[in-house]
């Protein structure tokens, strides 16, 4: 990677090179497409590669630069989109059979913002159907594999987006995170992955799973790349009624602030379950920040461990309601039947996969007469307890560190037949979806089998920049370690 003609993989460097005319967007794209040709067969990160559209867009970017125009902060950066984000005229499947060949009549706000910033959309990535899963095995189009070891899962549900960055098919990608669907695959694939504050990024055009939990965020090679991408896609959108009325997040200017004086919380009653290799990395992360001048403080979050239960009542309840719209009338596929009710039944029975049906039924049950208060109602109260715990913890600490995933990437098929075991993958990520606070996974060395480990940084709502500050310090520490071991 030291040849001067080498094309950088980082979005910040690509964009700079393209804007200054040192690199051409076409050349950058070709390099990425060549890697797709080479490895996509074994990895299956994409549901759709948009090579022709991307070439056209890259040529446009290059001609803008030739004309002395600035294509924007993501000039010529190849980006991949999770296939639950609407792209006008381009199939958007949610990795489900039920959407058939549906082509959305509009672009998601994030897609518009990426394009307006000069990004080149290279493809739509695979996911667990409707973003329900933690391994990207529940896809109607087959599983995605982990680029570090193709016998293992990439995590999920945004496994295709994580794998696309890890395999260097795209420089950055977007995923969605309802209970950890960005952070867990980022950890398993060794990329940075961010779930911003709820409401910081528009959800318009993101096909809804759990509306009070869903948030779009980036995967990237570096903390700075993730910050750049998030700055581009964040900011108020009047077309999303849950979008916070604030300007785009300001993150990059905070990355060099260091950790001196930062109060870093250790949750003393964190649920057990992290494997020893992951725990060792987390301990090292605390030491790294302490060595950089942070103060480590103990905090308690007694309700954290109930997050999984609250989530698996609330998210399926919201999903059962959101997915009622897939009824064979307006989008995609339909199974013909003599009357409308039978058509609904036949279309949904044929179109949804097993995990989606499981969650729709669980959610329908949790909302049904006689059970709503016992399940959904109580879960909403537990959600409040968790948010209160975080608020108390953040009175003492600026950020919290936890594992992003309890283990490194597991084998394909390992948890496929045990839904509860799969759900436990999200133990550490779910609580911040419930509270609406930001969280991100930062690659932090390797664990068992030499596979990537991610450390999760959590921060209070709208303190995304503080979270990035801590993440940047962890990244600097790891770079120093790696440079040290090479010499």
């Amino acid at each position, binding site marked *: 990677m030291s040849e001067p003609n080498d094309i950088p993989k980082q979005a910040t460097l690509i964009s700079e090179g393209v804007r200054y005319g040192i690199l051409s967007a076409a050349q950058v794209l070709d390099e990425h497409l060549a890697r797709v040709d080479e490895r996509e067969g074994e990895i299956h990160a994409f549901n759709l590669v948009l090579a022709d559209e991307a070439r056209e867009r890259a040529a446009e970017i290059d001609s803008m630069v030739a004309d002395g125009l600035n294509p924007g902060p993501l000039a010529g950066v190849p980006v991949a989109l999770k296939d639950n984000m609407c792209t006008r005229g381009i199939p958007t499947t949610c990795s489900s059979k039920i959407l*058939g060949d549906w082509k959305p009549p509009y672009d998601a706000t994030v897609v518009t913002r990426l394009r307006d910033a000069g990004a080149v959309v290279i493809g739509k990535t695979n996911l667990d159907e409707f973003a329900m899963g933690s391994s990207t095995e529940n896809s109607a189009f087959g599983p995605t594999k982990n680029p570090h070891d193709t016998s293992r899962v990439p995590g999920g549900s945004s496994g295709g987006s994580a794998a696309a960055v890890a395999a260097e098919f795209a420089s950055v990608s977007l995923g969605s995170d309802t209970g950890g669907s960005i952070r867990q695959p980022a950890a398993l694939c060794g990329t940075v992955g961010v779930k911003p504050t709820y409401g910081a990024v528009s959800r318009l055009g993101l096909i809804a799973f759990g509306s009070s939990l869903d948030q779009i965020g980036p995967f990237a090679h570096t903390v700075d790349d993730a910050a750049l991408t998030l700055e581009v896609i964040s900011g108020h959108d009047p077309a999303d009624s*849950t979008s916070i009325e604030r300007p785009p997040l300001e993150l990059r200017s905070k990355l060099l602030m260091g950790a001196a004086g930062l109060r870093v919380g250790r949750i003393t009653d964190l649920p057990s379950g992290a494997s020893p290799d992951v725990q060792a990395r987390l301990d090292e992360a605390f030491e790294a920040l302490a060595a950089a001048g942070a103060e480590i403080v103990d905090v308690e979050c007694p309700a954290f461990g*109930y997050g999984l239960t609250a989530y698996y009542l609330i998210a399926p309840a919201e999903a059962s309601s959101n997915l009622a719209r897939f009824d064979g009338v307006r989008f995609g*596929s339909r199974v013909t039947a003599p009357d409308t009710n039978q*058509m609904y039944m036949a279309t949904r029975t044929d179109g949804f996969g097993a995990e989606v*049906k499981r969650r729709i*039924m669980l959610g329908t049950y949790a909302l049904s007469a006689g059970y709503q208060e016992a399940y959904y109602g109580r879960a*909403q*109260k537990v959600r409040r307890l968790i948010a209160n715990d975080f608020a108390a913890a953040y009175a003492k600490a600026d950020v919290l560190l936890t594992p992003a995933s309890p283990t490194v990437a597991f084998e394909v098929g390992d948890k496929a037949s045990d839904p509860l075991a799969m759900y436990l993958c999200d133990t550490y990520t779910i609580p911040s979806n419930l509270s609406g606070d930001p969280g991100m996974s930062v690659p932090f060395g390797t664990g068992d089998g030499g596979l990537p480990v991610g450390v999760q940084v959590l921060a209070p709502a709208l303190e995304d920049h503080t979270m990035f500050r801590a993440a940047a310090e962890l990244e600097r520490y790891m770079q120093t370690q790696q440079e040290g071991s090479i010499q």
Partner: protein
Amino acid sequence: MSDRITPSDVSKVASLARLTLTDDELATATTELSAMLDHFAEIDALDLDGVEPMNNPTHLVNVMRDDVVGETLDRDEVLAAAPLAEDDRFRVPPILGLDD
């Protein structure tokens, strides 16, 4: 394994969700949902009296826009993406039972 949920409960839930289950699927779903509800019973012991339910993380309530004409989706494009359309409308099979 508890009997928190019976096959007939699951069958009713499936029907409410407009899903049809085979006998095998019904048996599997009953076992799986029972196991989940067993796990979820951990919150039964929590004292939640007086705790305000939280339904979303923002403090936004009833966000309204000005009542002015804005850009809308292109009708032809929307209808083209539907399984069946006719006369500028979505076409569906009979809504009332065929015997009515």
